[in-house]
């Protein structure tokens, strides 16, 4: 085989390996998909939707439509602190997992965030 062919083969192999490495590093999400925004509405002392599934890098906004303050708290993972009536809190999903969360003021309020 000619030397040029050998170089092209090596180059192609290296390029393929690099692309595979990048694809592997971004995990399950399609490496070229743009991050999405999601909203969880807090209404009537409930998180709506109660369960939300997002991809790493997606943004979740909790919007408090109730007349009282609430929180969105998953101990050790995320904690909005007090979200005032009418206010919002933004969180960028990082680590994959299934995260049950509560309002610490009214723990009867439960939700789950799934990060793929």
């Amino acid at each position: 085989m000619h030397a040029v062919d050998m170089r092209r083969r090596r180059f192609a192999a290296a390029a393929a390996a690099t692309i595979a490495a990048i694809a592997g590093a971004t995990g399950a999400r399609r490496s070229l998909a743009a991050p999405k925004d999601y909203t969880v509405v807090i209404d009537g002392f409930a998180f709506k939707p109660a369960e939300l599934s997002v991809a790493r890098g997606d943004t979740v906004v909790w919007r408090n439509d109730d007349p009282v303050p609430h929180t969105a708290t998953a101990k050790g993972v995320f904690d909005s602190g007090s979200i005032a009536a009418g206010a919002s809190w933004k969180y960028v999903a990082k680590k994959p997992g299934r995260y049950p969360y509560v309002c610490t003021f009214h723990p009867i309020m439960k939700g789950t965030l799934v990060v793929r």
Partner: protein
Amino acid sequence: MKPLQLAAIAVLAATSLAVQAQGAGPTDPQIAAIVVTANQVDIDAGKLAEARSHNKDVREFGKMMVTDHTGVNKAAVALVTKLHVKPEDNPTAESLKKGGEENIAHLKTLKGHAFDTAYIDHEVTYHEAVIDAIDKTLIPSAQNAELKALLVKVRPAFVAHLDRAKELQAKLGKM
């Protein structure tokens, strides 16, 4: 059950019975007065608990009552203002107010654990009675759709409070 608690339940139960007897419920202006009064009664008791209790859980519960019932009242007043519904005083609202004043007067004679248990016991009974009145009288009687929707929306606040009050009642019972 203590006399004051019986009185509180009686007031709200009587409202429901009166409604059924007459076949007509409170009007929207009367509902507005009942809601505002019911919230204010709990705000006043909550402020007393914050100031008087030596128990952190009870003080925090009192603080939550002040925060939440102030918020609900703010929403209720904003809505009835927008709807040009003027709260109209009525026997039910007056009884709630009187019952609230009697509760405060009684609580002021107590301290320590006796205060905490009396406060929380009353909160349990009170929230149960208010939820019952919301379900049996206020929501069914409300004429304006937005007023009805607000009552439906704030009902879970009372449920959440009742849940925590019962939890504290059990905890205090073990002390």
